[in-house]
């Protein structure tokens, strides 16, 4: 059992499990406990987020003050600029968004929320993290090889990416590719545990519609990932062969086709954005229900929209390729499918907003994050329509409008989703409460600054500013809009400074936060019935499930919540 005041940053005591005491190394470094593995993913993700954030600092400073030495970096050369934007994007998607939302929260929550003692295959779980860590190390190593890091954009289109004569980063390009491929393998392995554990290891009595929405979202995301990444792995093998062995899969002089890569990439790339979106929406669902004291509005319909989004996501990919040389007639097909996919997502957002109706809403820090997700993602979603419509995409493609659009989707997903989840589940993970005041200050600083970064970028994009260009003073028609670039960079600096508040709050609360108890939020789902933090094995006796996850404010009951594990004929214990 966890003791109050114990400094236990990873939350695993195995005193109840019948083992002898494990060494630090086997308990924390080589652990097979899903909670530790989840934390390992989370901490790795945080470190990578700092690295990716540092990169954005460097290149935004270059954009605001071209040619000047960036404090803490130096002068950003043309080649370095390309490497910075390439790796910023790659890191944020593959080494921040995916590990934090899917691997960290998925690993931590799935067994706890279904009433299991661990994942079904703990050693495969550990292996998946180890491969993931190796992939992160390989990516970081790519910055230190001769020629430096890969600079061909996160989309890595050949022939640029296939041929060192073109990209001038012979080792960086291959290190990058291998790192990404290994990351894919790590997540495929992780998916094994998610699907089998959720399907098979549920508590007795937990039916499909009793599963918390966040777990459904994580599973659908895993399935989407698994079903879409294969062609890109095939493509990555081919690109690797082009780079290292000298084949010509993508070399037009040798009968190859550069556009094939694009199809393979985006066939995965589009479902991938839903792979990260759905878990974030799942986290938001849990938080809204807890702090509005409300059932999720039409659980089944939300689930259907998630499935619909997932299925349709396989049919929209070429909207990234409207002007890339595909048959122009195909563009019309993809415009139609892309506009279609906006419908279930819009419906999902409406259902979330409807969940607020009739609620008793408390604006705690997690709730602020969850609500801001909806507000900010809405902008991301609607600006996507401009891009999904082929006619307007001719103008907006490869401009900062696209960039602002996907930051208004990815930032809510990866960053807001992470902060929502961590402020909500921190008490469970570490047995202590985070500081509310600091949490709110961090929230407002981050959100306000975020908007001041990207609204100027919408304006710049609409004025014709293109992406991946290191100095807009080279373009007479764009040079005069430098003020907007300075605003965006300044806002980024503000936002980065505010993250110090979060880091301080996090570390401080680990040691000095108020003891949380089992269920500080008075929530229903099963993880709140375990100790905070849960021991190895999670409960001395695994719970049963008697009802759905959102039985809040049930009429006729004294308490406004009804945990899933409480048998029906007794009043809920205090």
């Amino acid at each position, binding site marked *: 059992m966890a003791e109050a005041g114990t400094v236990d940053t990873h939350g695993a005591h195995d005193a109840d499990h019948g083992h002898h005491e494990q060494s630090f190394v086997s308990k924390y470094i080589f652990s097979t406990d899903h909670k530790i593995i989840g934390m390992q993913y989370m901490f790795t993700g945080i470190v990578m987020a700092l690295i990716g954030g540092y990169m954005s600092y460097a290149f935004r400073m270059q954009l605001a003050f071209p040619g000047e030495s960036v404090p803490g970096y130096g002068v950003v050369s043309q080649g370095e600029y390309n490497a910075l934007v390439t790796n910023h994007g790659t890191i944020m998607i593959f080494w921040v968004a995916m590990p934090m939302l899917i691997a960290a929260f998925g690993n931590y929550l799935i067994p706890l929320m279904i009433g299991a003692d661990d994942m079904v295959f703990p050693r495969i779980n550990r292996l998946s993290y180890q491969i993931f860590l190796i992939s992160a190390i390989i990516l970081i190593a790519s910055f230190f090889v001769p020629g430096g890091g890969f600079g061909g954009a996160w989309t890595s*289109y050949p022939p640029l990416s296939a041929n060192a004569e073109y990209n001038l980063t012979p080792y960086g390009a291959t290190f990058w590719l291998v790192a990404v491929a290994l990351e894919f393998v790590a997540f495929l392995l992780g998916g094994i545990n998610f699907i089998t554990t959720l399907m098979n290891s549920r508590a007795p009595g937990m039916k499909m519609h009793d599963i918390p929405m966040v777990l459904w979202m994580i599973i659908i995301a895993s399935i989407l990932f698994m079903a879409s990444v294969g062609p890109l792995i095939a493509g990555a093998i081919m690109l690797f062969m082009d780079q290292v062995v000298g084949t010509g899969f993508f070399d037009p002089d040798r009968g190859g086709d550069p556009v094939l890569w694009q199809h393979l990439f985006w066939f995965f790339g589009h479902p991938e954005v839903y792979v990260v979106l759905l878990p974030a929406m799942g986290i938001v669902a849990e938080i809204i229900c807890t702090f509005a004291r409300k059932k999720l509005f039409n*659980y089944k319909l939300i689930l259907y929209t998630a499935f619909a989004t997932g299925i349709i996501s396989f049919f929209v990919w070429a909207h990234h390729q409207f*002007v890339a040389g595909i048959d122009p007639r195909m563009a019309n097909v993809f415009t139609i499918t892309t506009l279609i996919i906006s419908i279930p997502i*819009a419906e999902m957002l409406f259902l979330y907003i409807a969940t*607020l*109706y009739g609620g008793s809403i408390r604006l705690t820090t997690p709730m602020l994050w969850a609500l801001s997700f909806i507000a900010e993602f809405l902008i991301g979603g609607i600006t996507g329509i*401009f891009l999904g419509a082929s006619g*307007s995409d*001719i*103008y907006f493609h490869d401009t900062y409008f696209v960039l602002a659009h996907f930051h208004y989707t990815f930032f809510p997903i990866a960053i807001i989703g992470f902060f929502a989840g961590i402020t909500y589940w921190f008490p469970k993970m570490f047995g202590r409460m985070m500081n509310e005041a600091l949490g709110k200050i961090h929230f407002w600083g981050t959100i306000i600054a975020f908007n001041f970064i990207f609204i100027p970028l919408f304006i710049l994009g609409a004025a014709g500013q293109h992406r991946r260009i290191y100095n807009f003073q080279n373009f007479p028609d764009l040079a005069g809009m430098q003020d907007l670039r300075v605003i965006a960079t300044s806002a980024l600096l503000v936002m980065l400074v505010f993250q110090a508040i979060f880091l301080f709050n996090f570390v401080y609360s680990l040691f000095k936060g108020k003891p949380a108890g089992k269920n500080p939020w008075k929530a229903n789902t099963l993880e709140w019935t375990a100790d905070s933090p849960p021991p190895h094995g999670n409960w001395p006796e695994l719970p049963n499930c008697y009802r759905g996850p959102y039985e809040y404010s049930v009429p006729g009951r004294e308490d406004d919540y009804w945990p899933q594990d409480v048998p029906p004929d007794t009043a809920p214990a205090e």
Partner: protein
Amino acid sequence: MTQGLYDFIKSIFAPLGDYLIGSSVPVGSSFAGDIDALIALVAVFVGFWALLAYAAFFFLIFRFRARDGQRAQYVTGEEKDLKRWITYPHAAIILCDLVIVFMAIMVWYDIKQRLPEPDSTIRIVAQQWAWNFVHPGPDNELDTDDDINTFNELHVQEGTTYHYELISKDVLHDFSVPVFRLKQDAIPGRVMKGWFKPTKAGEYDIQCAEMCGIGHGIMGARIVVETPEEHAAWMSQGSAGKVASR
């Protein structure tokens, strides 16, 4: 009939398009206004729904904020009278999408699926990291002795319908002219064809819109849209001294 419907809808949104985009980027081609109007249409539709959603969002947060002694309601979301708030907007959004799809396809067809009769054809050669432009010269035929080759500067005549042949010598590039609202990837091994008709004299940016390596950011060029007199004068100079200043 579809053309008539398109023209009608476009005329409603054209002024807003002029304001949203045209005010910062000149309307420089025959189809630039079409794209601007489409952008304005989408902006109005999504803006409407966004405002509605935000209004509901903030209203509900305020109206149902936690208050002492007041309990939340138990709502499953399957109640017919409440579900209507989802299903009606759902249907209305589908209608909006139909309009957007129709207008987008019309614009796309005009720019990318058809090739009107050209008055002239030019060749655009993209490479790491510069643009070569081949103008047909006074005989208006490419690949003849009087062709005019320029480096990073394209000269075209106002009011003339051009076909372009876009090629790349090495990696992917993209010929992008914001004032035309035009963009097309250049793919090595292929000749990409398209068209444009400049409508406003002046000198404007050409940008490369596909990451092409270290020099991607210095691959800007200029397009010089000339009146017929200016263009004739420029052409009579021949190939001599045709290197741009950038």
